[in-house]
């Protein structure tokens, strides 16, 4: 079995307009690996939502993507405020984004639900005041 491929990205918290660079790059990398368009789409949307969340709520963070023969794993880690009520945050339509974020078309309360929708598994480890780590997998 070959070694998994690993990609690491720093997500810039200050640069809202360039959010999506990491997920766009991952999309490109996965395409080069010859994965199916559907898998690529699911991975890149889930990752983009996570990236946006890190920019909106956590002043950035890191994204690590691992590609094995069985799955693609995305680990998003930030040192933001944490999520006080994960169950509430997972509900479609729940959002704590500001009006200025909403005016850009975000803050629909669909970020975390989309991440769950497009992945086969999703785990949220969060501590208020410390940060959040989200681990998602899309099976190949």
């Amino acid at each position, binding site marked *: 079995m070959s070694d998994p491929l690993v990609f690491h990205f720093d997500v810039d918290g200050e640069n809202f*307009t360039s959010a999506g660079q990491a*997920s*766009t790059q991952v999309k490109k990398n996965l395409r080069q690996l010859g994965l199916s368009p559907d898998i690529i*789409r699911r991975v890149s*949307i889930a990752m*983009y939502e996570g990236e946006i969340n890190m920019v909106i709520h956590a002043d950035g963070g890191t994204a690590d993507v691992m590609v094995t023969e069985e799955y693609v794993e995305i680990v998003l880690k930030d040192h933001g405020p944490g999520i006080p009520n994960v169950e509430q945050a997972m509900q479609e339509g729940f959002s704590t984004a500001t009006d200025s974020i909403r005016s850009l*078309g975000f803050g*629909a309360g669909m*970020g975390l639900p989309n991440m769950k929708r497009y992945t086969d598994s999703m785990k949220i480890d969060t501590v208020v005041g410390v940060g959040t780590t989200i681990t998602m997998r899309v099976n190949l």
Partner: protein
Amino acid sequence: MRVEELLEHGFEALSLPDGGREIDGVYIGDLLSWVMGRAQMDNAWITIMNNVNVIAVATLADTSCVILAEDVEMPEELVETAREKGVNVLRSSQPIFETAVKLAGLIA
């Protein structure tokens, strides 16, 4: 129907790096996460949003084109970004509903 064929029906091309792409269905929305959650691959996406995140969403959600309704302007640097990323962006002078009705007739 191919994206470039829309130019014969009153749509204006702002960025057309992949005009031969087929349109399969239409999605309408301005809330980006909503679009990412619901739009299907190869949909034409009608919106009035015109910021850089629209280009990212179109790329990641793999829509066939973005159609800006209501003659919404797109800043030149964003048009440039769309071309670089291979994202088709068209414009319609009509409101969203009329744009959608027209598309429905064309792709039926």
